[in-house]
């Protein structure tokens, strides 16, 4: 297991270096940030001053080496736009994104798994058919549109929930979150449901497929023959077996929820990382873009690692040292 983890971390380092280079060159190719940042009233002297102030007057390789030097000291550069360390800027937004992703994941799992299991248990019932039809909608309706519709219905027409932003936060066990205040929960509900919809459908379908497959297995027949109740067969034995694919997929999707919930964050003006990356790309704020992607890649690597470890716990047949990936 140790060898496995070390090998993983080494691969990660290579991925990070290659990616930082690609992003550096890519952002450089898009254009000159000063052309966007500088006030239109400015003259040539001011433009040159700004270029020098942002360190853009040096050749690209020199800028990159400077960045790498800083990165080794834990400094990923200062945002051009905010004049704050890029990493600090990202970490500031991280709690908002994490709580949204967490809330969405909870909804996806706690709603999706039972629905999917029911649909798999009674595939012919009209309720199951309705669930499956609903999951198709969840897949195919654009998040953007669903978000706006939810705002129109629940915020504008019914006036039950606030339409935008993050609610009041409170500090619990040293963590500042809006998930513990009533106002915060009211704010997070719509965006979380919006973000969860797609994952919910996915989880629902996976659970249903797993259910149908497992119900035909020998161990289910054996358990029934042994005289176990249907409830115990499904809730304990089958449930454990359908968890394995669910964990893998959910793990990967969690990464997606955190890193790329851009659309939902934009529609609900949620002050998270997704909005930050879009704004930074629009402003060609290279330090933030690079830092963001480095953080994202690291996060994916660790989530995958956690999934692999969890996998081996759930399924004793899996041995981590054998995994070459």
């Amino acid at each position, binding site marked *: 297991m140790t060898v496995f983890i070390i090998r993983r971390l080494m691969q990660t380092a290579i991925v990070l270096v290659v990616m930082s280079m690609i992003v550096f060159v890519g952002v450089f190719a898009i254009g000159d940030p000063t052309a966007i940042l500088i006030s239109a009233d400015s003259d*040539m002297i001011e433009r040159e001053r700004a270029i020098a102030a942002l360190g853009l007057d040096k050749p690209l390789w020199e800028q990159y080496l400077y960045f790498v030097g800083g990165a080794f000291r834990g400094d990923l550069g200062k945002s051009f736009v905010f004049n704050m360390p890029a990493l600090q800027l990202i970490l500031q937004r991280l709690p908002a994104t994490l709580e949204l992703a967490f809330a969405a994941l909870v909804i996806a799992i706690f709603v999706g798994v039972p629905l999917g299991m029911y649909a798999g248990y009674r595939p012919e019932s009209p309720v199951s058919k309705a669930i499956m039809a609903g999951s198709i909608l969840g897949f195919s309706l654009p998040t953007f549109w669903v978000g706006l519709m939810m705002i129109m219905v629940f915020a504008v027409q019914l006036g039950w929930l606030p339409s935008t932003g993050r609610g009041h936060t409170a500090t619990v066990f040293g963590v500042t979150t809006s998930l513990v205040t009533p106002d915060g929960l009211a704010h997070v509900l719509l965006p979380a449901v919006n973000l969860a919809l797609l994952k919910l459908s996915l989880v629902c379908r996976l659970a249903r497929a797993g259910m149908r497959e497992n119900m035909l297995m020998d161990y289910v027949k054996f358990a029934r023959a042994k005289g176990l109740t249907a409830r115990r067969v499904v809730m304990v034995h089958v449930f454990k077996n359908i968890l394995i694919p669910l964990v893998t997929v959910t793990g990967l999707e969690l990464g997606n929820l955190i890193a790329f919930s851009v659309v939902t964050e934009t529609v609900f003006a949620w002050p998270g990382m997704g909005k930050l990356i879009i704004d930074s790309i629009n402003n060609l704020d290279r330090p933030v873009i690079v830092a963001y992607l480095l953080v994202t890649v690291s996060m994916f690597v660790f989530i995958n690692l956690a999934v692999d470890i969890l996998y081996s716990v759930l399924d004793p047949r899996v041995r981590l040292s054998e995994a070459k990936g």
Partner: protein
Amino acid sequence: MNRMSWRVLAGAFAAAMISIANPFAIGPAGAQDLTIGLGANVTSIDPHFHNLSPNSNVATHIFDKLIDQDEQQKLVPGLATEWKSLDDTTWEFKLRRGVKFHDGSDFTADDVVATLKRVPWVPNSPSSFRIYTQAITAHEIVDPFTIRFKTAAPYPLLPTDLSTVFIVSKKNEQAPTGDFNNGKAAIGTGPFKFVEYVPGDRIVVTRNDAYWGKKPEWAKATLKLITNNSARVAALLAGDVQLIEAVPATDYAKLKTNANVALSQIVGNRVIYLHVDSYRDQTPFATDKAGAVLPNNPLKDARVRKALSKAINRPAISERIMEGLAIPAGGVLAEGFFGSSPKLKPEAYDPEGARKLLTEAGYPNGFGLTIHGPNDRYPNDEKVLQAVGPMFNRIGIDTKVVTQPWATFASQGSAPNYAYSLMLVGWGAGTGEVSSPLRSLLMTVGPGRGGSNRGRYSNAKVDELTNQALATVDDAKRDKLLQEATEVAMADVGLIPLHYQINVWGTRKGLTYKPRADEYTLAMSVSRSN
């Protein structure tokens, strides 16, 4: 976990959902509180860090300037009660007495000097306010409430330039940007006091009860950053915010008939125009019909530029595409602003005349042209350009339309790349004077001139008249010179104006917003209608 505890959990979850959905859980905002939905991102509370209008918009709540701009961008007294030129290169400003900063300290001439020192000092500024203070070569404090500024040459725009510079306390001359963002140095003399800045989310301010001017009606104002147009409109409809800026054209008609919403609008200081490469002998996107670059740049010929201008049906663009939120333009700044000429009318739609001019210029069959523009910068920018394309086609110019995100477009189309031949851009006159677009868009590129002249238009007469205006301290004379310079440039079609934008704000019923030409959204300008 046994069955029982699952049930308890499920029950708790259901209870939580119900309590969340309870409409009474969300308290109504106090009658003294105002929440505003802003449409653009604010990047700092430091008023000197980034010369960007959303930042200045927020700073206007907390800080004052020596001279203010009213809704029409006319100069009105701020922290200076009066100002005059003693001679061509000396200005005297009388400062307001009895003004206190939010920390209780007195405002004097020392704070003005500290501000002038801080402006060029701010580290890592991506766009400095230095351009508005650099004309001042020396200052002299006559007494704590009288200050004199020296300029190297006659500089009539000094009061205008200073109307963009926020005064900070002398204690914060060396305060870094971070100290403003966390509130430590965010101390001004303005109508509101700083409370909180959450990047990407909101800015909160409270009323300054010791304010020297008219005190705002609101004890507390929250400026929320809602950059998505639909989300901003929804927030207004839901009553989560009481005022939104930049009402999108697509929602304008719907909001107008909504009983819960009131709209206010004004012709803004922004012109949308086409910049034409009239500089190069060969321009990369003017081709023959087969696609080979023409040996001579047809856009250098004023007749061709005039023909392009005549080919554009401006009323159709303003009415159909802008849904009435624009008026056809004939100059670079709408009528009523300082220096704009009432003689300049929008070019009439005349495809026949356009074809005749093309024939005269030696292009009876037209030529090929690719026009460029942004797709995320101005209201309906992409749609406008896509309407202009077929209008050019109608006079025989095979036109291709290419639009890009502003991030790509701006760096390609501007100095030093100048990659395009004809492009759609916009210009907001931050100073409210025609000298602003004239100096940046139409004067020959050079030090302090033509900074955004993306077509590198050059006309000796325009340069001469504008230079003369920029050195004429007498307002009436300057007004006339500016009018003349614009008329010359427009007769020569130095650029092709399309329309002036109309700025629209939406409020909840019962509130009124005093609309502003400079697109600023201020809590001070919101009042109860009755």
